[in-house]
């Protein structure tokens, strides 16, 4: 959210050609005039925009990123407090329709330089090759127009650059070019409970790959980042720089190579010429409308704001597919309380993983899911108890006095696209005078079967682990789809290189272009896709094809 207040110190610094680092110290940043025709404007600085911005800057292009939120200095600005950290969430109101209406805000939508990586749990499994061929394998959803082999080099690059902590070897999926650069993070209470129970049940587990450092780590253009201190507040923002959010990784790299990151700049419109090319991006900063001239636009605002901006501008939608194929991951959580002291606020929340349920033999559904142990912050848990169990009065307070004994497991599972799940513009305007998006979401039979399968299994695991008062909280995670990537201009919005079929200098590089949801957390794949889109663009640019 762009708050309409007096300019912050960080903002004034930027105008002088500097940006804040982790501690709020100024680092020099090249700045461009809005009348300079820059090579590219990148809209959004999350898992899509930030890596792409760095790649283009490294290639010597003049690039400006427009980010709706603030440029925080995490060590200075982030509190270990969920309420204070609500500032990391996108709070322009969205309307949630359908039989399984989605929560946005702190569930899946960030703002600020770094986007949703500011609040992601940093769980970074790769996809397995068959995730990209769901239609071939099951006759549902859609195949990706690219295969695993095209993503694998980018996964490898990302794992090394971000400093992923993870096991060697990783027990699932194809062999790796290189192992994770850092050893796994330590297991917290929830992970130990899941590990113990799964071992007796014959379910393989492993310490999870996490984008948080198990040891201090150096990368050129970024500098040293300190090791994770086992704060369990990843979803409220990391204040040490150990978590590989974009603000401490690709953003400083991009700035070091001459990119400008223009925070608190909310994009509203595009200007186009007679040839249908975008010539300028219009945005509001400090309540003043501005226009940045540019040769190319990379839209990386996520699966809600990307299609919303295109629909508002009636752009890139000859296919009628913008806003269609909205998906979310099945994300059922199972909670229990244990005799042991768990203290679920400590340690990386998702410390343990199992992908033995990637394609379960007993499945009556397409796709599969992964299992992860989860710690939880107190207010997040309390809120889920209120919503999910409906406890109130003395019963609520009694339950929460067991908070230190709470541990959870959850799934991250496939979710299929359906005609009934889509984003549209509502007639209701927000404080900016723009139509609020309405998102229709209703789980289909596949999601219900997958969730039932997972509910049974997770309850067995938690019973085996010794949990009492087991309960499950149905939820959906992440926003995916709405601007499908494909080979056919009639059914997709962008091609396999992220380029719009309609507007030749518009590219989309975020989770909105995923043709299918994938049975893994999306951040690493968004980054891989963004780097690939940047490389395809640069290759064509060298041949004068853009």
């Amino acid at each position, binding site marked *: 959210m762009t708050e309409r207040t007096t300019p912050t110190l960080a903002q004034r610094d930027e105008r002088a050609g500097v940006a804040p680092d982790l501690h709020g110290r100024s680092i020099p940043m090249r700045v461009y005039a809005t009348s300079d025709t820059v090579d590219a404007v990148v809209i959004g600085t999350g898992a899509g925009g930030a890596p792409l911005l760095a790649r283009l800057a490294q290639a010597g292009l003049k690039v400006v990123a427009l980010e709706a939120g603030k440029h925080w200095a995490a060590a*200075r*600005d*982030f*509190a*270990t*407090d*969920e*309420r*204070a950290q609500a500032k990391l969430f*996108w*709070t*322009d*109101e*969205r*309307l*949630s329709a359908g039989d399984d*209406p*989605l929560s*946005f*805000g*702190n569930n899946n939508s960030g703002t600020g330089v770094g986007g949703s990586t500011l609040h992601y749990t940093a769980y970074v499994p790769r996809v397995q090759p068959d995730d990209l061929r769901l239609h071939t394998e099951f006759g549902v959803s859609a195949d990706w127009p690219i295969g695993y082999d095209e993503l694998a080099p980018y996964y490898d690059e990302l794992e090394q650059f971000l400093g992923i902590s993870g096991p060697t070897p990783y027990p699932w999926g194809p062999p790796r070019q290189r192992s994770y650069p850092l050893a796994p993070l330590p297991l*917290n209470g929830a992970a*130990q*409970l899941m590990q113990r129970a799964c071992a007796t049940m014959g379910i393989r587990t492993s310490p999870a790959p996490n984008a948080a450092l198990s040891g201090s780590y150096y990368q050129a253009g970024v500098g040293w980042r300190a090791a994770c*201190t*086992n*704060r*369990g*507040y990843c979803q409220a923002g990391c204040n*040490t720089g150990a978590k590989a959010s974009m603000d401490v990784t690709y953003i400083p790299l991009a700035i070091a190579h001459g990119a400008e990151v223009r925070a608190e700049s909310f994009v509203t419109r595009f200007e186009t010429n007679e040839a249908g090319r975008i010539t300028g991006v219009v945005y509001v900063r400090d309540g003043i409308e501005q226009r940045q001239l540019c040769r190319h636009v990379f839209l990386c605002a996520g699966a809600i704001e990307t299609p919303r901006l295109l629909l508002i501008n009636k752009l890139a939608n000859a296919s009628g597919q913008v806003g269609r194929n909205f998906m979310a991951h099945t994300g059922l959580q199972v909670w229990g*309380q*244990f005799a*042991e*002291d768990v*203290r679920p*606020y*400590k*340690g990386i929340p998702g410390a343990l993983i199992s992908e033995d349920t990637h394609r379960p033999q007993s499945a009556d559904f397409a796709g599969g899911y992964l299992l992860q142990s989860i710690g939880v*912050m*107190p*207010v997040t848990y*309390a*809120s889920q108890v*209120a919503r999910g169990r*409906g406890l*109130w*009065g*003395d019963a*609520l*307070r009694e*339950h*929460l*006095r*067991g*908070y*230190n*004994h709470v541990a959870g497991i959850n799934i991250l599972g496939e979710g299929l696209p359906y005609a009934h799940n889509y984003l549209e513009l509502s007639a209701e305007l927000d*404080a900016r005078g723009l139509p609020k998006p*309405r998102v229709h979401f209703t789980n289909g039979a596949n999601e219900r079967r997958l969730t039932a399968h997972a509910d049974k299994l997770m309850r067995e695991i938690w019973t085996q682990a010794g949990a*009492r008062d087991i309960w499950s909280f149905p939820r959906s995670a992440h926003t995916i789809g709405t601007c499908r990537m494909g080979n056919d201009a009639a059914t997709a919005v962008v091609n396999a290189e992220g380029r719009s079929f309609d507007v030749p200098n518009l590219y989309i590089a975020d989770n909105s272009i995923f043709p299918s949801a994938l049975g893994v957390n999306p951040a690493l794949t968004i980054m891989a896709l963004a780097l690939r889109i940047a490389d395809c663009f640069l290759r064509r640019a060298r041949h004068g094809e853009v």
Partner: protein
Amino acid sequence: MPADNYPTGTVRALLETDLVTPPTRHALQERLRQPDVTTPRFFDARDFATLRAACARLIPQPEREQAIDLAGALDERLAAGKSDGWRYDQMPPDGEAHRRGLRGLDESAQALFATNFQQLDATRQDEVLLAVQRGEAHGETWRTLPARRFFEELLAELTEVYYSHPLAKEEIGDASMADAHGWQKISLDEHEAHEPQALETSE
């Protein structure tokens, strides 16, 4: 289930130490010092009184001399026009939903006991709230405002306000704010010296 009882004063003591980062201390101490809302800015006096009565049942705090001000936090949020980023499409905007819902509590109270919600005893107030939570309450309001959603939204927000307060954190043994030096002892049944220990565990 294990329901621990923790000593009072733990979080307040931690806030005085370097185990808490400056931004964290600032956020929590400000919340501790926050005066109660006596004159609402969003609700009128009648609705605010109904809200306070509902808060006293949804999250009762009989043991506190001064209860954590839940109604005031909701009033402030709505007066500031802040959102958490989404709402149910079948619900009107937050402010309108809460105003209408609180009037709905009175309608349901009238239907059941011929008395406004605020004037009922605790047992009867609970009956009204339970009927609203189950979507079984009577009242004109609930024909157009989904009672279950109203209840869920109200309860979730009050719960978040309550457990964000340092005194509620003391109640549940939450020491998560004292992380300035990180955590080394994170295994089951492991504690740092400054993590509060339960006085007793009741089953």
